[in-house]
């Protein structure tokens, strides 16, 4: 299989600091991949290495089968948004996109059409102000527009949703969703909900090490845990016996009781728990007053992966 992005045993050191440690990732064409990790995890360094803007200490990177080399970033035909995009602020957004289109050797008509389409999509249509007068959010939207101007087959976005309001975020992730299957998108973010919403693959990185590289569905299914909060009414002794009984059930990972008397259960199978727990409550002559189930989301998996020390 030909991969859109292939990273083979890549390590990047800045002096004594290892920013990326023996990273290997393969992303098939058309994948939407979320790249998550705390600050300093190595996400930006990895993306910059994929763009050929910085050189790996060891290992190899390929984009669309082309080996990435420093100084050859122009040959990759990749749309790229850096974490802090910089523009020629004496231009307007339209002038800037035209300039990008010309550099990419697009023909005049394509530049005109694509510019109008992107400006419309990102709410910059009709804005005649020069870029120096833009807010951070507007600059971010323009940054994404310039990454997409040449219809690239691979798009690398470093924190595309930072500085954006909810409307701007929605526009970006709707756009990313619309690219699914056609364009390979790798984007870094701190917002887990965005990854859950649009990605089919997630990479979780921490301190330069890749901790998780899997499809979202697989990850949530494999590590599915359901938090049940319930309150029961009855004899205290019966409640304690119920807790002991629940602890021995194979579909239950842990049981606890907080100061307010609420029983907290971490269940591996919410369906089975939902059928059996009310029956057990009844068997112990207790009354079920409240029963609430929350399925563990990617966010808690992320927190568990990165808060190991």
């Amino acid at each position, binding site marked *: 299989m030909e991969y859109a992005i292939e990273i083979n045993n890549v390590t990047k050191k800045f002096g004594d600091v290892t920013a990326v440690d023996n990273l290997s990732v393969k992303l098939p064409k058309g994948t939407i991949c979320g790249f998550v990790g705390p600050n300093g995890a190595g996400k930006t360094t990895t993306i910059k290495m994929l763009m050929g*803007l910085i050189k790996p200490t060891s290992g190899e990177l390929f984009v669309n089968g082309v080996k990435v080399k420093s*100084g050859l970033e122009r040959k990759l035909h990749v749309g*790229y948004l850096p974490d802090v995009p910089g523009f020629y602020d004496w231009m307007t957004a339209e002038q800037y996109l035209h300039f990008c289109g010309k550099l990419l050797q697009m023909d005049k008509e394509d530049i005109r059409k694509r510019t109008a389409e992107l400006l419309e999509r990102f709410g910059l249509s009709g804005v005649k102000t020069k870029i120096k007068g833009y807010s951070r959010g507007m600059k971010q939207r323009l940054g994404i527009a310039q990454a997409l101007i040449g219809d690239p087959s691979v798009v690398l976005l470093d924190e595309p949703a930072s500085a954006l309001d909810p409307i701007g975020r929605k526009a970006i992730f709707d756009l990313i969703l619309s690219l699914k299957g056609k364009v390979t998108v790798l984007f870094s973010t701190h917002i887990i909900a965005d990854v859950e919403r649009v990605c089919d693959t997630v990479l979780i990185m921490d301190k330069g090490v890749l901790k998780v590289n899997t499809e979202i569905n697989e990850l949530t299914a494999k590590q599915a845990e359901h938090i049940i909060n319930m309150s029961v009414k009855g004899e205290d002794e019966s409640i304690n016996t119920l807790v002991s009984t629940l602890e021995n059930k194979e579909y239950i990972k842990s049981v606890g009781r907080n100061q307010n008397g609420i029983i907290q259960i971490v269940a591996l199978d919410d369906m089975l728990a939902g059928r059996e727990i009310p029956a057990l409550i009844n068997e112990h002559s207790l009354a079920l007053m409240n029963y609430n189930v929350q399925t563990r989301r990617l966010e808690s998996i992320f927190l568990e992966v990165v808060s190991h020390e």
Partner: protein
Amino acid sequence: MNNFIVFLKKELKEFVKTWKLLILLALFIVNSFMSPILYYYMPKLLELSGLPGAAEQFDMSLASYYTQYYGNQFQSGFLALIFITCLAVVREKKKGTAILTLTKNISRPTFVLAKYISYVIWYTVVYVVSSAAFAAMIKVLINESINKHTIASFGLFYLIGIMFAAGAIFASCIGKNTIVSCLIGFGVYIAVFILAAIPYVNKFTPAMLLDNSITALSGNYENLLIPLLTCIGCTVLFLVLGIVSFEKQEL
């Protein structure tokens, strides 16, 4: 359109849209007018100040006017050119604009060369305008017309600026920030000054072109070849070193 031309056009426009052209033009033009006027009236001013015999010591030849003018352009015009050019690449690196441009199908050597050419074009425009203004002032003040020797003289002095611009581009490519780049660019300028002051060595340096541009006024083109070649050589060397260093940099 070739992306060298696209980027060059953008650079040329940027020069006008920002303060760069204004500063360069202002300094060069001010020197063009002020330098001959001040030199012309200096003996009269000294006479008025009551210094006996001071006015007579003034050499009022054409060469003296040009020496004064070139000296002033060297000390302020070229310095402005160096500092403005020193910002060319480093500001794009710091602002992040270089990254977005370089990921749009333009090579790093093209990026640096287009920048250099655009600065040279504007320097040429400014230089031609200021030289014409100076020549006009000379005509008005001492009734000396422009001829092929004065044009040759202007041409030789112009080449020093071309070399300084290349030195500044080199400084801009290797500097990590604007201050470092400006210091390196200033270092190049000072180095030319120092080399010009060293006996025997100076005749091999580009700074000698300053002397050559004065002797050329009288049709004397002796000892021109070596400084001319070192000036062109330094220009090419600065550009090559700048491009090579920029190609290897992590952005």
